[in-house]
């Protein structure tokens, strides 16, 4: 699934495996290649192996098998302090006994950079995160968002080509988090650094990344740009994990090129895009995004197959309406419609017909 072309990659994982206890593999056969300047996010639930991968790249864990390459050179035998990789830690890991400026100067001091040069670089890094006036403070005197900025500045101050971020926004409130997402991506792109970002927040992954690697069970389930990941998930896990998703289960009854017929458990047959099915007669999970479902007859495309549905709940959310339906015997079918002037507001108990384009409906592994 990950492209195996590692020859011109800046960072590459080649058949990497990791086991902590010698029995269970936390990371199973990881192959991943990043070109220079890419912002890649490792997304996955906790325990999926994403943080372990980051730690192996930083050098705090060693791969049990396989090779990790940085700029074409294997780094398995290079200790963390000689890798020259910047990192933002989950809890920021600012040194509490040093001022902000001393924190930033630390990586420069250990690199034996002269005092005047050092001060200039520290100042530039602080200005970059708009914290220029805070050099004399101690980390404990800063708010969470400010500490986050300092941690970011410290990871960038020695001008590394690769920066790792381990859920750096996890401790911030929603508004600040959204603001920082924007700032981090901007900085990363304007400085041209390669970034590996770990998160379990799918919105963060979608909004920030050039590409997202979805981890589960120690494997990359899909590696794709955000839009592809959302619109054409390769398997049920990705479909469920990224964004909101409706699933209907059934049996594949016919395959016709890109499309296939799926007979749902209640007997109705629908047409879906055959993405990841085992073959005719096998079970499948059909995935449809809530916003791609239409119930307004006039807006539906010609010849769209429709299903009967009953409204169970209608939730007004301002910009959108969120409606819960009973479809094909399932009671958790969600549709989202835009709050447009001509949009019909459904009521509980309404019987409607719903439909979608066959290409918006993916038949995936059961």
């Amino acid at each position, binding site marked *: 699934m990950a492209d195996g072309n590692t020859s011109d990659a800046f960072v590459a994982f080649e058949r990497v495996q990791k086991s902590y206890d010698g029995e269970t593999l936390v990371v199973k056969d990881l192959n991943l290649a990043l070109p220079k300047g890419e912002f890649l996010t490792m997304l996955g639930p906790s325990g999926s192996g994403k943080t372990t991968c980051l730690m192996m790249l*930083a050098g*705090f864990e060693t791969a049990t098998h396989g090779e990790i390459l940085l700029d074409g050179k294997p780094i398995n035998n290079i200790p963390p*302090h000689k890798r020259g990789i910047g990192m933002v830690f989950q809890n920021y*890991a600012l*040194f509490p*006994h040093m001022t902000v400026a001393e924190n930033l100067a*630390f*990586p420069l001091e*250990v690199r034996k950079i002269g005092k005047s040069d050092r001060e200039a670089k520290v100042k530039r890094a602080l200005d970059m995160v708009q914290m220029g006036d805070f050099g004399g403070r101690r980390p404990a005197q800063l708010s969470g968002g400010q500490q986050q900025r300092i941690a970011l500045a410290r990871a960038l101050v*020695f001008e590394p080509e690769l920066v790792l971020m381990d859920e750096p926004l996890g401790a911030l409130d929603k508004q600040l988090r959204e603001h920082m997402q924007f700032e981090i991506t901007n900085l990363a792109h304007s400085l041209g650094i390669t970034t590996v970002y770990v998160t379990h927040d799918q919105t963060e992954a979608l909004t920030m990344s050039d590409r997202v690697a979805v981890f589960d069970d120690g494997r990359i389930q899909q590696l794709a740009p955000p839009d592809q990941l959302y619109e054409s998930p390769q398997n049920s896990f990705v479909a469920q994990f990224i964004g909101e998703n409706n699933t209907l289960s059934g049996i594949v009854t016919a395959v016709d090129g890109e499309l296939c017929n799926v007979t749902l458990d209640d007997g109705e047959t629908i047409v879906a895009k055959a993405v990841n099915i085992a073959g005719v007669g096998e079970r499948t999970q059909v995935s449809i995004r809530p916003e791609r479902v239409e119930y307004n007859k006039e807006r539906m495309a010609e010849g769209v197959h429709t299903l009967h549905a009953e409204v169970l709940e209608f939730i007004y959310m301002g910009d959108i309406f969120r409606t819960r339906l009973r479809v094909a015997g399932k009671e958790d079918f969600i549709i989202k419609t835009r709050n447009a002037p001509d949009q019909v507001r459904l009521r509980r108990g309404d019987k409607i017909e719903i439909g979608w384009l066959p290409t918006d409906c993916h038949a995936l592994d059961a």
Partner: protein
Amino acid sequence: MSGLPPYATTGQRIWYYAFRVICGLIFFFLIAPIVVVMPLSFNAQDFFTFTPEMLRLDPEGYSLKHYRDFFETSDWQAAMWNSLKIAPMATFLSVSFGTLAAIGLSSEHVPFRRAIMAILISPMIVPLIISAAGMYFFYSRIGLQGTYLGVVLAHAVLGIPFVIITVTATLVGFDRSLTRASANMGANPVTTFFRVQMPLIMPGVISGALFAFITSFDEVVVVLFVGSAGQKTLPWQMFIGLREQISPTILAVATMLVAISICLLTVVELLRRRSERLRGLSPG
């Protein structure tokens, strides 16, 4: 002002005052023997009791002769210099080894860490006379008995448990991602230790050092076994003084030792607060 709520019952009221009386008695029990020694050390007579002149607060009844005696007797002077040569060296060794041991034992992948910890702490638990006898036989065999180095090593062993305990306590709150961050920024393990880890565990190291110093400075049993006349320390000299020539000079020495202890405690507490503040734990 009273801490009693208005709804307290008679029983609660009685207990409230009884509790304070008990606390006062305990405090008195702990402090009285030390306090009594202090005025006695200024006795103008060679007695261990308050003379009628002293009780009348007559200046004639008081003098500094026992202090003079301490500074003019070569035995006492030698003992003091011995103590001052042994205690700092033993403290230095205790702190170095104890800190390293605490750091090592706080990392999870060390096998048998509980057992190792128990062994290192044991000098604190095993009766001193047993440690002392054991050291005597062992040090005699390897030629350390009766040497300066032998006494220093023996005292270092006694001080290590205190350092391990205090440093381990500070390490519990130590965030391991700080050392990782340091490595990530290019600092080798030695730099990381001195620039990041050491400043942050300093309060524990300082407290441990104080305990180790006091342990060595006050210790009499082990030095009696391991040392020879050349390593006669202050406590040893006091012990001899009590046994052979009952002289109030001992009281003068005791008073000075108490004063030194109070000074040390104060200095160390100030140091500890300062480094705690630097650690960013309490508002600066």
